[in-house]
């Protein structure tokens, strides 16, 4: 598709009228959008090296395709600066991996939202927030990159609430759900380093996340105490499944954990070991499924840490993504459960703005 072939609309040269026009066309998430003026879209496209017709993602059921051009139009509408665009592109390339299942995770009654975790030097380059009020408002990059993903789901893939998005209660993250990993004072290797991307590359990791669960602990002074409260949140009956987890340690909790030398791996193992419920407990709330138990415990178990008679959250410590983020003050970490009881979406990552091992 050349730019000339893209459909355009002539509207009166009045910004407020153009915003209203976007509402009338059904192009918004309920909030006002930046009208996708042709010049702004073309500026956005300058930050992607591939042709505008390049397909970034395809819907497995409808065959609808998101091109670079369509992504740029929606990124403008979300309020993105052009330099944010490579993150949006990489996020959708990650979401297009079959294992992520963006159709199912968007359409499901479960109400998940794609959480984007950006890691690496690009965070500072484009001014993302990894600090105070990490999940909250106030930062243009965080807010608009996440919003662009939602607008693409709405406008390109027609994942319309009530029609093809059947979320029972939805999730505030469906407006925008994008954070950056904090590098400052972080004692551990960054996520992007764990992902083995070349030095200097940044990455975006996408995760079909359920609701945000704050974990408050101001009294715990040992790794076991802090992590024990997080594991308890991870194992709550309402969200324990075989699915993956994201845990964002606050800097205050990180200081408690890392001051005694705990590595990221030790934290993952501790959380996996302790985020569990007994079979009897699962039965008591009607959530025990023999098939799930067998999947976790059969053939010697999916991890040596799997304990007989217990259902753990996830299949192994690798299912728990642990990063640091947030402001210096406060014993507030968080846990975000995955969508789906059945591991129907697995988190994916892509490098941002570069092509590694591509044809």
């Amino acid at each position, binding site marked *: 598709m050349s730019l000339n072939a893209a459909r355009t*609309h*002539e*509207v009166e040269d009045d910004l407020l009228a153009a915003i209203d026009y976007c509402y009338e066309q059904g192009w918004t998430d309920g909030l006002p959008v930046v009208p996708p003026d042709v010049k702004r879209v073309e500026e956005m496209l300058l930050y992607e090296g591939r042709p505008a017709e390049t397909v970034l993602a395809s819907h497995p059921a*409808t065959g609808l*395709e998101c091109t670079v051009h369509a992504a740029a139009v929606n990124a403008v509408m979300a309020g993105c600066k052009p330099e944010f665009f490579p993150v949006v592109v990489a996020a959708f390339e990650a979401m297009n991996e079959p294992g992520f299942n963006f159709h199912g995770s968007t359409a499901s009654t479960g109400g998940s939202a794609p959480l984007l975790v950006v890691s690496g030097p690009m965070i500072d380059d484009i001014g993302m927030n990894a600090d105070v009020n990490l999940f909250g408002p106030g930062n243009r990059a965080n807010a608009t990159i996440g919003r662009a993903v939602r607008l693409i789901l709405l406008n390109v893939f027609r994942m319309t609430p009530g029609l093809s998005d059947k979320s029972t209660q939805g999730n505030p993250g469906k407006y925008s759900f994008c954070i950056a990993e904090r590098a400052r004072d972080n004692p551990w290797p960054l996520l992007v380093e764990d992902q083995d991307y070349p030095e200097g590359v940044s990455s975006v990791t996408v995760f079909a996340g359920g609701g945000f669960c704050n974990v408050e602990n101001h009294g715990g002074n040992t790794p076991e105490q802090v992590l024990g409260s997080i594991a308890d949140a991870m194992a709550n009956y309402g969200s324990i499944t075989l699915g993956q987890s994201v845990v964002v340690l606050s800097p205050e909790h990180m200081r408690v954990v890392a001051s005694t030398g705990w590595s990221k791996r030790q934290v993952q193992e501790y959380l996996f070991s302790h985020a569990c419920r007994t079979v009897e407990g699962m039965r008591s709330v009607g959530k025990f499924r023999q098939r799930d138990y067998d999947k976790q415990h059969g053939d010697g178990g999916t991890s040596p840490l799997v304990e007989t008679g217990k259902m753990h959250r996830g299949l192994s410590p690798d299912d728990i993504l642990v990063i640091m983020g947030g402001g210096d003050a406060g014993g507030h970490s968080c846990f975000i459960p995955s969508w789906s009881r059945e591991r129907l979406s697995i988190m994916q990552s892509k490098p941002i703005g570069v092509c590694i091992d591509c044809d």
Partner: protein
Amino acid sequence: MQLYDPTVAGPERNFVRAAALDSLEGKTIGVLENGKLNAADMLHEIAALFEQRNGCTIAPIFSKNNASAPAPGETLQAVAREVDFLITGLGD
């Protein structure tokens, strides 16, 4: 002001409805379950009604590996070869 349209045109597809069966009597019924809790049980109950009332034969059950993804094309093709009609639905 000239705005780009943020939506895309869908692919052109030629979907047509299958011709209706003249009768259900003695036909082979397929069951495609999605793997969710109770899905297979519920669908088998429904298939059993067709067996009782219409003398249908119930084909071996077909399953989706992923409840939230479209059934793979090869699954649908295999089902189409073996049954006259199919019932499917959500579990839970």
